[in-house]
């Protein structure tokens, strides 16, 4: 089993993810430069956070149109798990692998702080080890994390159980105050219709060891590895 961690010029969470996968979980993982066009040998893909291409044009827009993304789409179509975190989420929406768009935070500021998330579904390769309703402490670090989709799209995300994480307060309520960026319906993470593609703005790799203040994010990666073993 091997996981690809995709590197674009400007990715900066790639090594953190590699550390969690290899050192914390003992999995086999590899950094893959964006010029690679064939990802067939991998069982899962992580698109890390950062500022690919300096956020030129729109966050994630240029990376989404690089050749490696054709292979990411191919692997996703084959049912392999693909997770995009922060800038990786932006790349996945820009490439059309996930619905909606991520726009500038409603309060136009780079927000880097802990947030609480509620697990909305365990029926994904990334959340199977959680219980529905679990409250997680996982930090965010972004300027363009304001999730936007039109009403019909939001309704279909809900109907198809594609809503994976919501920003909540410590008691688990999805209030306006708990929403750090103005995302529609407090959405922090959504999945594709088949559930094997997940995008989330918070950084589970920054909450995967107790020494970091939280290890709530670790189960995202453990769930992914378990899903791969069971395929």
């Amino acid at each position: 089993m091997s996981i690809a961690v995709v590197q674009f010029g400007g990715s900066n969470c790639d090594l953190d993810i590699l550390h969690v996968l290899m050192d914390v979980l003992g999995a086999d993982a590899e950094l893959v430069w964006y010029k690679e066009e064939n990802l067939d040998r991998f069982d899962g893909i992580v698109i890390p956070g950062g500022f690919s291409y300096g956020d030129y044009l729109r966050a994630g827009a240029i990376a989404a149109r690089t050749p490696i993304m054709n292979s990411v789409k191919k692997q996703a179509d084959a049912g392999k798990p693909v997770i995009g975190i922060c800038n990786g989420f932006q790349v996945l929406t820009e490439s059309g692998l996930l619905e909606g768009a991520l726009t500038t935070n409603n309060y136009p500021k780079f927000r880097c702080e802990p947030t609480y998330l509620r697990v909305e579904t365990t029926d994904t390769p990334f959340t199977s080890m959680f219980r529905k309703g679990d409250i997680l402490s996982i930090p965010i670090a972004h300027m363009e994390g304001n999730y936007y989709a039109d009403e019909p799209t939001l309704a279909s995300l809900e109907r198809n159980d594609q809503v994976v994480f919501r920003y909540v307060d410590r008691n688990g309520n999805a209030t306006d105050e708990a929403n750090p960026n103005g995302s529609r319906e407090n959405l922090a993470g959504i999945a594709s219709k088949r559930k094997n593609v997940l995008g989330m703005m918070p950084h589970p790799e920054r909450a995967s060891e107790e020494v970091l203040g939280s290890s709530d994010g670790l189960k995202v990666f453990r769930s992914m590895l378990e899903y791969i073993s069971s395929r």
Partner: protein
Amino acid sequence: MQYQAEVIIELKAGMLDPEGTTVKRALEHLGYETDSVRTAKKFTIVLQAADIHSAKENVEEMCQKLIANPIIHNYSISLREIE
């Protein structure tokens, strides 16, 4: 023939424009009252095409595929032939 296209990309009406709102507030600090301030991005693209219609078609495609995100943006294109 050589053409110059000016492409304006704007957030759709009703979408939050935090940069525009911030500029509006700063204008108020300077004593200017405005009803609204919206930001936009302009791209100037010079290209070769057989005629103005194919130039327009080409730039339209560029907007759909990359320059705009049709989920959140409207765009407008104006074209002229360069002598």
